[in-house]
Structure formats: C-alpha cells, structure tokens
C-alpha cells in the first residue's frame, strides 16, 4: 500500500473534531479507532464499500471501480439514493480485471482505456475512480492514471483510494471525504452565492429523504448549496466551499470534511439530525442561528421559530390518529446508527415503549449508555446474538423490531413485525413528514392481520401441544427509559 495512503489513514484516526478521539490518551489515540475484525464473526462492509456509499449519490458522474468483478458486479445499483435528474450514477462501471491483467501488470493501462471508453460513451462532467484490494495490492497507481486522464480528457478524474482491506465502511466514508477535499471541493466557483447558503454533509438522499427536508429550508429562505452527496451534481460539490454553514448529519462519517472545510474556508459546522420531530426542530434552529452569526438577516431566527411551531403542531396533529393504536406497543430498536435513536423520543411521545436486553447484568458503563440513549447520544446497544433475539421475539418480548436488513429474518422467522430503518429501506423517514411516514408504517405493520394468522399453529400441531423453541437462558427484553 502506498505510503501516502498509510499516512492519510493515520491522520484520519487522529481526528481533533471527534470527541471520542480527543478524550483518548496519547497512546490510545495512536492506535487509531479501527476495531480489529474477528475472522468468522465479522459483519459489515469494507472501506471500498464505505467510499462508494459516500460518493455514489453524486448523480451526474460515472463511478468506475478498478478491480476484479466482485467489488462492483456483486454490489451495483443496490441502494435507493434518489436523483432528481441525472441517472448516470446508477451505471455499474468496472474494469473487471482478469488474471492476465494481474500477471502482465496491465491494470493501469486497462483502467486508462476504460476511462476513455466511459468518456466516449457518456461524456460525464467527471469520473470517480475507486481502487480495490487487488489493484492496490498489485500497486496500480490510480492517482497517476487519474492525473494523466484529467489532462487528456479535459474532465476531472478523481482517484478514491480506499481498498477494502484497509478497514471498515466508516473509514471508507472518511477516505471518500478526503478524495473530495483533495480533488473536488473548492475547484469551481459558484455563479451565485447568498448569505443563507448551506451544505449538508453525510446525507445520501436515500429513498428521497432530502426532499422531505428541502421544502423546510426553502420556506426559510435557506439555500441548499450542496448536499454531500445526496442528489448532488458534481458542480455543486465543487463549489461547496462558498457555503456559510455546514450541517453534518450522518454522525461522524464525514467529520473530516466538516473540520477541514472550517480550517480552509472558515465554514462553521454542527452535528444535527433530521430524524425525529425535536431533532428536526433543533437542526432548523441551529442552522438559523449559525447563518445569522455568519451575517444572514436576523429575522431568520424568528421565521425559523414560527415554522418550527407550525410544523411541529401539524406533525403532531397528523400523528394523533395513531396514538391510541400504538400506545403501549413495545419496540425493540436494534441499530448502531445514532440517527435512528433520535426517533426514540417521538415513539415515546406516541406512548410506545422501547425495550432492550436486560440491564441487570450490564456494567455501569452500559447502563450509562442506555440512559444516554434517551438523550440521543449513545451509539450502540449491546449486540444480541440472533438465536437470543429470535427467542425473545418468538416469546413475545417485543411487538415489533426496528432494525437493518441483517436482522430482518430473525424477526420474520419469529413471526414478528419488522420495519427497516437502515440505508436499504424503501421509505423516507426524514423531517416532520418522515416521522409521520414512520408512524404510519409502524401502524400498518403492527395492525396487519397476518401476524395472528401466521402465529397460529396448524391443527395437528395444536393436538400435539406447542412445538418448542429453545429460549433457555435468554434474557428478557425489558422497557428502558
């Protein structure tokens, strides 16, 4: 692996903008924040996956993956990052290198020819080129190829150095951010700027969530200069350095981008969320305050408060119909993503009960975590092994599981309602409107008569007595908060 990539990763792990990192001692900080993976028990994507996730939503460019087939072939067009126009980003482009390319050292040449073919066929405003394990291992220099291609083709060709083996999806997000900082952001000047221009960092417009938020901003006269990278155009990202405020939504995924944009161009940033009613209000409030501090019209703060009051009222009145139907229902929220926890307060407001694994055996630290959850600050719940979760759901410890696709079948096989709240979901849950959608989906799932029917034993099974499942020693799910 190239020296520069090593240096980059070391630097990324030493992120002054990250509270966890700052709280560490000198020695712990040097180790970085990558958790060692356990072979045979690892789950989740690689750094390449993370880089692709973070950049793919740039809609008008071609994303070209330099590697053997699997990296792109097994994963393209698999998320619902929506576009309001261009569709070029949905093309699965890869060099699909062969054994011969590897043995003969033809990788770089093949990449260059592939870029030429892409330019000839699609004439994109830019190409993003991704390295992968194999092409990094054989030493293909995608930086050099991109530099050369940029000159030859007259369009920016952006190298993204995040081969899978360097680490996790989260590291990949950050490496993608570095690629934007090194090659994209600040390379073009916007045609117009306003005192209320903002960027949103870390939103990928999954299932169109950006469009649940954008009208709120527009109502306030706040102009979204660039969303990095949901529904973005190359030009918007390239001119993002002229915004007045950066809002970072996906926790720490692009914190390096936010901090460095502050260093280079003096753009203040804050971490906020558009999930949940109070979080959405808080985000709008903070945006208004920071914009005014940056010189926007002071009336913005009042307008924001008025909008918040009206929209909160509207959202709650839309939710009212569901309150009696959902009150008392027990929700197992199983996700690492901090943003999903920000819906907790809204669910509780609906009278729903959040359940978690028993805290009796937990350490003080864990208990503190669960307490913090209710403030929307904790990142992880204790992981529950699938066998235990199956038993808990089968036993009826919770009425519904809210999680990502990985645990979908644990719930379904236990004949328990399940709602997808991770990136692969098909519904948009952002802003005030998104909360209404979420609650509507919750209700649709919980009230479906199918659950009663599928839990019923077959007549001959009833005669035999209930067929057992193994829940020995499985801790109970108990209400928290």
């Amino acid at each position, binding site marked *: 692996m190239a020296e520069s990539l090593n240096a980059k990763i070391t630097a990324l792990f030493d992120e002054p903008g990250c509270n966890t990192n700052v709280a560490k001692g000198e020695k712990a900080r040097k180790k970085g924040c990558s958790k*060692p*993976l356990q*072979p*045979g*028990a*690892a789950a*989740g*994507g*690689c*750094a*390449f*996956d993370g880089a692709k996730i973070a950049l793919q939503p740039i809609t008008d460019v071609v994303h*070209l993956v330099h590697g*053997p*087939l*699997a*990296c792109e*072939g*097994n*994963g*393209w*067009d*698999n998320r619902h990052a929506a576009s309001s126009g261009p*569709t070029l980003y*949905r*093309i*699965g*482009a*890869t*060099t*699909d290198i*062969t*054994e011969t*390319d*590897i043995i003969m050292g033809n990788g770089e040449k*093949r990449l260059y*020819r*592939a*870029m*030429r*073919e892409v330019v000839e*066929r699609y004439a994109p405003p830019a190409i993003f080129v991704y390295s992968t*394990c*194999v092409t990094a*291992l054989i030493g293909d220099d995608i930086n050099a190829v991109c530099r050369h291609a940029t000159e030859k083709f007259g369009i920016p060709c952006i190298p993204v150095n995040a081969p*899978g*083996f*360097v*680490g996790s999806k989260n590291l990949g997000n950050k490496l993608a951010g570095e690629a934007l900082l090194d090659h994209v952001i600040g390379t073009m000047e916007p045609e117009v700027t306003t005192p209320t221009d903002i960027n949103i960092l870390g939103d990928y417009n999954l299932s169109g969530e950006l469009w649940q938020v954008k009208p709120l901003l527009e109502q306030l006269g706040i102009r979204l200069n660039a969303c990095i990278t949901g529904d973005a155009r190359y030009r918007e990202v390239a001119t993002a350095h002229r915004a007045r405020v950066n809002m970072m939504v996906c926790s720490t995924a692009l914190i390096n981008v936010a901090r460095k944009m502050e260093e280079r161009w003096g753009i203040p940033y804050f971490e906020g969320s558009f999930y949940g009613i109070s979080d959405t209000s808080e985000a709008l409030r903070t945006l208004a305050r920071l914009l005014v501090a940056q010189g926007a019209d002071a009336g913005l703060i009042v307008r924001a408060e008025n909008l918040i009051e009206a929209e909160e009222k509207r959202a709650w009145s839309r939710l009212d119909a569901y309150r009696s139907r959902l009150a008392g229902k027990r929700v197992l929220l199983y996700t690492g993503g901090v943003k999903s926890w920000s819906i907790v307060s809204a669910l509780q407001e609906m009278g729903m009960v959040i359940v978690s694994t028993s805290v009796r055996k937990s350490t003080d630290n864990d208990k503190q975590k669960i307490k913090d959850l209710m403030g929307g600050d904790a990142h992880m719940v204790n992981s529950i092994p699938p*066998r235990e979760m199956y*038993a808990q759901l089968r036993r009826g410890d919770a009425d519904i599981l809210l999680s990502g*696709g990985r645990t*979908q*079948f*644990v719930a379904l*096989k*236990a004949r328990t309602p399940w709602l997808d709240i991770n990136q692969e979901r098909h519904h948009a849950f952002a802003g005030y409107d998104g909360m209404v959608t979420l609650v509507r989906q919750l209700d649709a799932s919980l009230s479906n008569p199918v659950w009663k029917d*599928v839990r019923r034993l077959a007549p001959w099974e009833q005669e035999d007595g209930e067929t057992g*499942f*193994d829940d020995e020693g499985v801790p109970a799910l108990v209400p928290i908060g």
Partner: protein
Amino acid sequence: MATIIQRRKAASLNPLKSSAPLGAALAYLGIEKGIPLFHGAQGCTSFALVLSVRHFKEAIPLQTTAMDEVATVLGGASNLEEALLTLVRRMKPGFIGVATTALVETRGEDSEGDLRLIMERNPELAETKVVLASTPDYAGALEEGWASATTAIINSLVEPWSPSIRAFQQINVLPGVHQTPADIEALREIIESFGFYPVILPDISYSLDGHIAESWVPTSLGGTSLSEIANMARAVHTIAIGEHMRAPADTLTAVTGVPATVFPTLTGLEPSDRLVSLLARLSLRPVPGRLRRQRAQLVDAMLDGHFHFGGKRVAIAADPDLLFSLAQFFSGMGASIVTAIASTGGNRSLQHIPVETVVVGDLVDLEDGAAQAGADLLVTHSHGRQAAARLGVPLMRVGFPIFDRLGVSHEETVGYRGTRSLIFRVANQFLDESHACGPEDFESAIPAPVIITEEGRHASGTFATH
C-alpha cells in the same frame, strides 16, 4: 455453430456477471448444516451476502476470514484458522465450505496447504467437514464457482468405489447453478416416480426455498446430508445439468465409477423426453401415468403458446448454460434470438446456441444489441431493468440476481411441467404487450402511388426492366 466474440472493451458497464465465490457460496448452502466462508477481505462477503439476501429473501449464513492490511501483507492463513475455529465454536456447523477470493489468489497463497495444516493441528475441527475451492473473482462467474465448489466437495467427501459398496436404487443429480429450488424439487419428483432415491448435490431445494423453521438455525436450513454425499458411489447413474457441470460429473465418475449423463438443458419437450426415457431405461419401469399426462399438457401448451412466440425478437443475456437453455427454448417455440450475451466465454454449449454470434459481454452490450435489432423482449436478471426502461421493452427476469420480484425460488423451468409453466409465463408477458389495432398499424396496406406519365408506361420504369 455460433461464433463466440470476446469483446476488447476495457470497461465492463452494467456487469452481467456475479462473481465466482458467490457461485461457490450458493453451492455450499446446498449442504446440510453448512456455512460458506469467503477467504478474503470482509467486503467481498458483505456484497455477496447482501445480493443473495435480496435474491432469496432469506437469511444467508455467509462468513468471512476478514483479512485486513496486516493479513494482506503477511498472508491470510492465520485468519483462515481463526475463522474456522470461531465458526465451529459459535455455530457448530457440520460443514464449512471455503471459497477463496481474488485477494488471497493474487497473493498466490497456498490455501489448500494452509487448510491441511490447520486441520491437522486443531482437533476441535475434527467433527466438521471443511472443503476448499479456488475461486478467484477475476476468473469465471457464478457457473465456475458453483462447479468448482461441487468438484471440491466430491473430491473431499465422496467415498471412492470399493467392492464393499452395494449398488442401490439411487440416482445422483448434479444440478447447475441456474436451477431453482423448485426445479430441484421437480427433478426429485420425476426421479422418485421411477422408484429411485435421488441424491442431489448441491441441494438447495430445502435450504433456499423460503420456509419457516421451528427454531433459529445459524447454518443452512437444509441440503444434501454428509452421509448421502459419502455414499454417492452406491448410485446406478449420475445426471448432470448444464455443460458447466461436466467437470464435476467427470470427477464423480472417476471417484465412484458411476456412469454419468450430462444434459445440456432440461427445458423443452425433447430434453424432457430424453430424461424420462433414460430413467425408464435405468429402472426398467414404464413411464408413470402422471408424467405421460404432463407431457400431453406440455404439447398442448406448445400449441396454444406458439402463436405468441412466432416472429418475436428476443434479446438474452445470462450465464452460458442458462443462455443456451433459454435460447433453445425460445427458438424452439418460433422466436428468433436477435442478441445473445454470455457472462463468460469458456462454456462449450455457447457454440450450439442458435444464433450467428454470441458476445461475451455486459448489459450495455445487451442494451445496444437489443436496440439495434429492435427486440420485443429482454431476458436477463434484475439489473436489466435500467436497459428495459430506457428501451421501453419488457423485461423477463431470469437467473441471478432477481431482487425485485417475489417467489423466484418457486419458478420452475425443467421437465414437462416446468417447460409448460415457462411457456405460459412468456406468452402472458407477450400478451400484455399486444394492443388493439388502428389504421396506423396498416401502413403497408396503402397502395403504392401510381403515376401515369404516358399511356401504357409507369413512372417507375418500363415493364421490360421488371
């Protein structure tokens, strides 16, 4: 004989292929209490896992040796060892199938040798059968991975023929990667109807068919049992489906001495007839009435269906044996194959596809070919949806992955009954496209203008020149 064209393009745009390790994983999932393990970086597993879950809509127990930067530099043997020990400790599988990925293969690791040493020094692995197939992502696709894994299983787990083995009324079946759980179930029924006991390797009919189990199972939900695999030498015959299963079939014959027949396809009247008559010959039994009736229904379906196939222009992109099977089917029903795109070029069935040229390419080749030829139907996996939308041509989803349809595991295409249902599926899709006629559909009926310039002569020339 079709000419096979290997493209010279450097970029694969909208790939048709899924990777070889994924094919191997699917095969390993057809073994009872099995877990597939990818030897490589964790992303390889993650992508394959997500894709398989989207296709089957089932939990897929796929694991990874999670090679990081250190392992990439120093070698992955200790990761392989740790992964095997962890899996055995946590999930107690009966079988672990290892598929190598491009990362370890590019490093040139001797994974076979590593595995041997690991098995020798870890007594806690003794209860678990571990098999390894070499499946670098940069060579081949699903078919190659599936076939390599099957061959590896045969080499490691089938007991060679010996005089003590008693022949049994058993038929071995080596299905191709393009067979669905429903296909395998149908084959089982056909074989059983002749009084035979089928041993199907790999058998995904119970592990990937989508059913609710009585408890949480961390491994595959079903599949060929290890004892059945060990006893494959007891069979009287082996049936392999698809040219890509020829190598596994040859290996099985070499190990067991059981003769094998490779069926290039089992879709269509004639191939089904061949299967049924082989079974009748081997069993010395008459063809059961149920199969005779299914044959009669298929012939009727062909008669009813041919109206809708005749003259239709079909563009197909698929893995080679599926491409061959579908191309035979469509052209046998009267449609013409205007574009044939194969994911890989090594399969000998490709040259027997009823077209002039078969292009080894991607879905952009399919799109361009279909546009140029004015195709009436695109036939490929779900990723063809973008092309279908751009061209305004209907898409029939076949192969892997199909992530935007339910019930994929229950689509049946083999034998009389499977062919019958395939005919109806396609004919119905064509019927959807038929429209009520208007005057604009009959432009060719408008008489050519006749301009008389002088008596007895037409403007277009003299009669003499006609």
